């Protein structure tokens, strides 16, 4: 599934800007974490999202609409693409690899991975619920909907904690309400 979108990408070579480091770091006996490699990017990365097959890592950069795609299997930066201009957005990849959801807190967008086109966008608040700048953002296992957390302001009774939005229209399909225990 990954191959399909990867082949369709507009590839921009920026290899000279990237520094890969596989120098040995200190290892510990029975270590849980073992250093594998590092990439130095042209600008400060801010947020990351793994592809569902664990092969690619998407990274946003501060104050840019750019997303850098790291081919983890080959330890290199493969592509960079432009998605909707948002400040420091949080991303989530759909399990079928067709979409990336982008949460910029003031707005939320669905991006098609095949051509990196934005196909739907919602501005916060939605139905009185304000998106949070958090990682509480995930597609359902069938990729047919995406959950995003939000905060509902107003009189305290029950509050919407998350919205389930239909893919790709982003219509509200369901909501999760919370209230403190009595």
């Amino acid at each position, binding site marked *: 599934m990954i191959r399909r979108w990867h082949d369709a990408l507009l590839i921009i070579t920026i290899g000279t800007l990237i520094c890969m480091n596989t120098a040995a770091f200190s290892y510990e006996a029975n270590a849980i974490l073992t250093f594998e490699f590092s*990439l130095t990017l042209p600008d400060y990365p801010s947020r990351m999202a793994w592809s569902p097959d664990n092969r690619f890592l998407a990274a946003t950069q501060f104050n840019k609409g750019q997303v850098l795609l790291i081919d983890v299997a080959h330890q290199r930066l493969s592509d960079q693409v432009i998605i909707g201009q948002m400040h420091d957005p949080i991303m989530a990849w759909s399990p079928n690899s067709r979409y990336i959801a982008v949460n910029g807190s003031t707005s939320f967008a669905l991006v098609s991975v095949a051509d990196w086109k934005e196909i739907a966008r919602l501005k916060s608040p939605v139905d009185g619920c304000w998106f949070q700048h958090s990682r509480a953002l995930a597609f359902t296992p069938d990729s047919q909907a995406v959950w995003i957390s939000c905060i509902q302001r107003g009189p305290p009774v029950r509050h919407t904690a998350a919205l389930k939005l239909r893919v790709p229209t982003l219509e509200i399909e369901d909501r999760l309400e*919370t209230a403190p225990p009595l």
Partner: protein
Amino acid sequence: MSDVSIYAAADRITSHNESLLLLSRVSSCSGDKHPNGINKCVQFLLGYDLSNKSPLFVPFGIKDETDPFRIPSSAQIAAIGNLAVGSWTPPTGQPPHGPRDIRLETYDTQSGKRLAAFGGPSDVGRLAISDYTLAANGEFVIATLSDLETKQGGVRVWDARSGRLLQSLQTPPASFLELSPDGTRLAVIVLKEIRIFRVGG
């Protein structure tokens, strides 16, 4: 305590097999105010399986024994649903640019009991926790650390139930981290670098 407001927040959705688990932090706040204007709140942790919106456990409240105005600023639940971790930010009355007293606490979600506290200044010195995540099996907590003044940082791994430090790596200031969906790799942002680690143990 008469409630004057409720604030609900969620920090991360955890996926596990066909389930999505969400840990909601719901604060119930009274009119009691700290001199700096912060309301006195009680925070509850509520866990849900988003596939059917069913609760995962009986909600329980968590509080700081020494500062009633201090509440967790974020929380996550392990993929298997039986363990949660919360981060506690600097207590009230602390100067905004003073020492960064951030710590992590883990809870058994079935009993509501606190299991361990770690990652505070006594553990990490001048460094402060930037980000953290729970291993899918809930066995350990991984955190990134930073101190921008000294340009020091690191990555720490703690046993989630005992709080025992399992691994400590020195790095420049480290910010966000993400575990791969299969839990075998960890990506860490270290200034302009992305460092990839294999996760074993």
